[in-house]
C-alpha cells in the first residue's frame, strides 16, 4: 500500500511564497483561491520579535472531516490517501468548508479576475482563464496533492518525492527544500527518513483529530 504524505520543515522556510505561486500556476486556480498559502505569524516583542512562516495546504486527512460532512460523497479519499473533490457530484453546500479546520476547501464562484481585489489586481490572469475552463462554478475545489503529477509519474516509472515530474509542484519549487513528499508506508521513502532523522513532527490542529498527513518539523534550533 501507498500513503502519500508531506513533511514541511518550517525551520528552513524563508517565506518566499514560491510554493503559493507554483501551485497556482500548476493547478490554474482562480484569483481568490490559493491551495498553498504561506501563513505569517509575528511572534515575540521588540527587539526579539520575528516573523514565522507556516506553509499550509490540504492535509489529506485520514479522518477527513470534510468527507464526513459532505452530503453527496463528492469528497473522497483514494486508496493512496489523497483526498479529492469531484465537481460533478458536488452541489456546493459548503458543509465541507466549515468542517475543514484548515481552510483547504474553496468554492469556485465562477469569477475569474474581478475577484482579485481592488484596483490593479483585477486583470484576468492565465490561471484565471484556465480556471474558467477547468472548474465548475458553484462547486468546491481543493489541493489534489498534485495527483495528476503523481499518477503521470507512476505511469512513467518515476518515484513521487524523488523525481521532479512526479512530485507536487509546491514541493519541487521550494528553493529552501522545506517540503518533502513521499510514501509514508515505505520506511525508506523521503518522508519516512526525514521524519526519522529530523523529527519529532507535529500536525496542525491536533485537537481536530483529522489524521492530518502533512507533518511539520521545526529543524531550526531557535
Amino acid at each position, binding site marked *: 500500500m501507498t500513503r502519500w504524505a508531506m513533511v514541511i520543515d518550517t525551520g528552513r522556510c524563508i517565506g518566499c511564497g514560491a510554493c503559493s505561486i507554483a501551485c497556482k500556476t500548476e493547478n490554474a486556480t482562480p484569483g481568490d483561491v490559493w491551495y498553498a*498559502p504561506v501563513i505569517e505569524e509575528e511572534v515575540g516583542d521588540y527587539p526579539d520579535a520575528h516573523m514565522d512562516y507556516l506553509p499550509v495546504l490540504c492535509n489529506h486527512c485520514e479522518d477527513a472531516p470534510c468527507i464526513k460532512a459532505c452530503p453527496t460523497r*463528492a469528497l473522497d479519499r483514494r486508496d493512496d490517501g489523497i483526498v479529492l473533490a469531484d465537481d460533478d457530484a458536488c452541489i456546493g453546500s459548503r458543509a465541507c468548508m466549515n468542517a475543514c479546520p484548515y*481552510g483547504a476547501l474553496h468554492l469556485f464562484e465562477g469569477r475569474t479576475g474581478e475577484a482579485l481585489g481592488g484596483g490593479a489586481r483585477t486583470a484576468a490572469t492565465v490561471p484565471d482563464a484556465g480556471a474558467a475552463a477547468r472548474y465548475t462554478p458553484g462547486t468546491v475545489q481543493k489541493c489534489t496533492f498534485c495527483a495528476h503529477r503523481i499518477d503521470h509519474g507512476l505511469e512513467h516509472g518515476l518515484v513521487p518525492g524523488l523525481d521532479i515530474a512526479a512530485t507536487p509542484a509546491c514541493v519541487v519549487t521550494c528553493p529552501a527544500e522545506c517540503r518533502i513528499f513521499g510514501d509514508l508506508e515505505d520506511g525508506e521513502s523521503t518522508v519516512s527518513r526525514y521524519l526519522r532523522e529530523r523529527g519529532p513532527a507535529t500536525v496542525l*490542529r491536533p485537537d481536530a483529530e483529522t489524521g492530518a498527513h502533512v507533518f511539520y518539523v521545526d529543524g531550526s534550533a531557535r
Partner: protein
Amino acid sequence: MSRHLGPQNVFMDRFVLEPKVQRVWDIPHAVWFTLMGVGGGLFVLARALELESDVGTWLGLPFVELLSFAAIAVGGGILIADLGRPLRFLRALVNPGTSWISRGAIADVVFVVVGGLLVLPDLELGGSRPFDWLPWTAAATNGLGRLLELVALAAAVVVMFYAGQVLAEPRAIPYWHSPLIPAQFLLSSAATATALLLFLQAVNDVVIPAGHCWLLAGFLALLLVLMAVHLRIDADHPGKAESIERLTSGRYRTPFLGGVVLVGTILPLILALVGVAWADARDVVSVLAVLCTVPAGYGLRLLTLRVGIFPPVRTMVPVR
C-alpha cells in the same frame, strides 16, 4: 449579499496566523435553520399537545401542520437556492452515513412526505374528501396512522435540531463543536413553536391552559441554562474564546445579550410565568411571546453562525 464581498473561504483574505471568522454561511442559512426548527417544532408540539385540529383548518387540514409543512418547504427552498449547484440538490441524500446535511435532508423529505400522507385523508376539495379511502386518518387513530405519525414525529424532531448538528459535528470551529448547539437549536425551536401555538389558540379563541405557559417557560428556562453553560464550558479554548468574546463583549454584545438573551429569552420567560399566574393575560402573552421568540430564534442561529471562528491553525487546543 455580504458573502459576495470576498471569497467565501476566509482563509484566503490574508495569510496571517489568526483566528478566522467563517463566512461560508450567513443570513440564508440562519433563515432556513429557523424555518426548519419552527416547522418541525410546530408539528411535534401540536401533535404532542393534541392541538392540531383545535387551532383552525384549511381545506380540512390542520392549519398548524400546513404551517409546519410550509415552513419546511420554504426553508428547504432557501437551502436549495443557496447551493452552488441547486439543480443537483437530490444528490444531498446519498451520504447519511456520516453527513448531517444528508441526514437532515432525508429527514426533511421524510417529514414532508410522511406528514403529508398522514394528513391527506382529511383533505377537503370542493366539499369532498378525495383521499378518505386511505386506510388511516389524520388524527392517527389506527395502527397505520400511528406509525405514520411516529415516523413524521421522528423526522420532525430531526428537522428541529439537525442544523445544529451540522455545526456541531466537525471540530473545526470549537464554538460549534458541542452537543449544546443542537440542544439550543432544539429548545429554541420548541419555545418558538410553543409560542406560536399559544398565539394560534388565542386567535382561534381556544382557552390557553396554564400548562402550555409552563411549557413555554420551561423551554425558555432550559434554553437559558444551556446558553449559559455553553458560554462557560471551555471558555478559554482558542477559537471558542474569540467566539464568546464576540458574543459577550464584541460587536454582537447588544444583539446577543440584549436581543437574544434578554428580549428573546428572559422576557418571554417572564411573560410565560405571568401567563401561568394570570389567565386573562395569556392572549396578550402569546402575542408578545411570538414577537420575542421568533426573532430570537433567528438571532440565535445567525449569531451562532457569525461567531463561528476557526482558531489559528497552529494552535494546540487541549485535546479533550
